[in-house]
């Protein structure tokens, strides 16, 4: 496909006018991963983390309120759907929009936990994600301005996209996919929230892999 080494064989292309979502071996694999974890987020129940009192033999499990569970699951599913869109979209602007949607849903997953420390981290991450839309959309706009099209299908292999636009795209995705670092800061993995927190890691990983493919293709 595109006669470039990165994609592998073409499996399927879904045309919406001049926007062509394509499944190559590469994007198809990413899609399968995102689909798998979305299904996991739908079917799995949250684990109940156990706290052990140091120096004694008392322990207790944390209860997870139902509304928190529902909200986090909804956000995780939405994040999975946005990831599905982002990994197969054949349009650079659609990719950026799906990327910012991943950013928003990641904020949602983190911010569901009503804990000041966690909320603080979610807020700081949100600032980063919001600022990252500047290079993200800026990159897409420069692609449009310099080549006249946003379709990856049309741009593939032409080497027409300026380096600045590629740098902007990568910077933007770095900002949107920054969430796992803030998760570490918030220690949300110890707060009740797993396995939905997994979706944050999966989505940002897949987003990074996809932007690498885009930058190497266009």
């Amino acid at each position, binding site marked *: 496909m595109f006669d470039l080494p990165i994609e592998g064989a073409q499996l399927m292309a879904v045309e919406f006018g001049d926007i062509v979502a394509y499944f190559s071996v590469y994007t198809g694999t990413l899609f399968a991963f995102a689909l798998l974890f979305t299904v996991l987020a739908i079917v799995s129940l949250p684990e109940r983390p156990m706290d052990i009192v140091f120096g004694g033999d008392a322990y207790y499990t944390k209860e997870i309120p139902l509304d928190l569970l529902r909200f986090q699951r909804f956000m995780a599913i939405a994040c999975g759907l946005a990831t599905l869109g982002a990994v197969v979209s054949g349009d650079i602007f659609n990719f950026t929009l799906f990327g910012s949607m991943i950013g*928003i849903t990641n904020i949602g997953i983190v911010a569901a936990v*009503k804990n000041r420390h966690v909320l603080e981290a979610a807020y700081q991450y*949100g*600032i980063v994600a919001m600022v990252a839309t500047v290079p993200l*959309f800026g990159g*897409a706009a420069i692609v449009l301005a310099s080549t006249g099209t946003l379709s990856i299908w049309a741009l593939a292999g032409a080497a027409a996209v300026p380096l600045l636009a590629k740098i902007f795209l990568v910077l933007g995705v770095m900002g949107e996919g920054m969430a796992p670092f803030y998760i570490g800061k918030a220690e949300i993995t110890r707060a009740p929230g797993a396995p939905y927190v997994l979706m944050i890691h999966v989505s940002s990983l897949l987003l990074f892999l996809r932007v690498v493919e885009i930058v190497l293709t266009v």
Partner: protein
Amino acid sequence: MSPYGTVLAVVLVAMAIAFVALVRERDDLHRLLLTDLAEIVALAIIALVATDLAEALILPGLVVGISELMALSEVYLVKEGLRSVPERLMHIEVMDSAPAILAVALVIYGIVLSGFSGGAVAGCGLLFWFFCKGHDEAFEIIETASGYAWALWIVAFFVFMIAPAYWLFAVMLAGGGILLKVMAKMALVGTMRGGRDV
């Protein structure tokens, strides 16, 4: 250098200024506002392309920006524990005597204008009324009106598609519907204060 390149350089400088301000700022609320400033720069870069396609891209960009801003402000409110309903911010004498006549004048003028701009004017009238008189019971009425407006609009679409001969009737329905819809939306601006109705 092309005009596009020149203005792009200017925008990049503006972007740098916004980012430096963001790094230097320490207050969380001010940082939130500054991120919005940075967001506008992204829209400026898109707008620079100056084609119809780029204009069509600005709207989704704006929606993303606004939704992120709203999500973050909500996180900020919860984080800081700002839950109490603010006291009345402003009270001057004219707010007791004038609201009825001003609101009625604006709503009637809005109906005369009809359509989107009419909805905006009439909505301003309602907004002024709620601002002066409080808004505890009005939400249900607005929701009902908004629902009927939507139904009118859909009916108008069906008339356009099924019986195009009656286009004037459909235009009137759609114009009235969008008047109500925009009025309802405008009237809600600024009234959500986390009180018991929301």
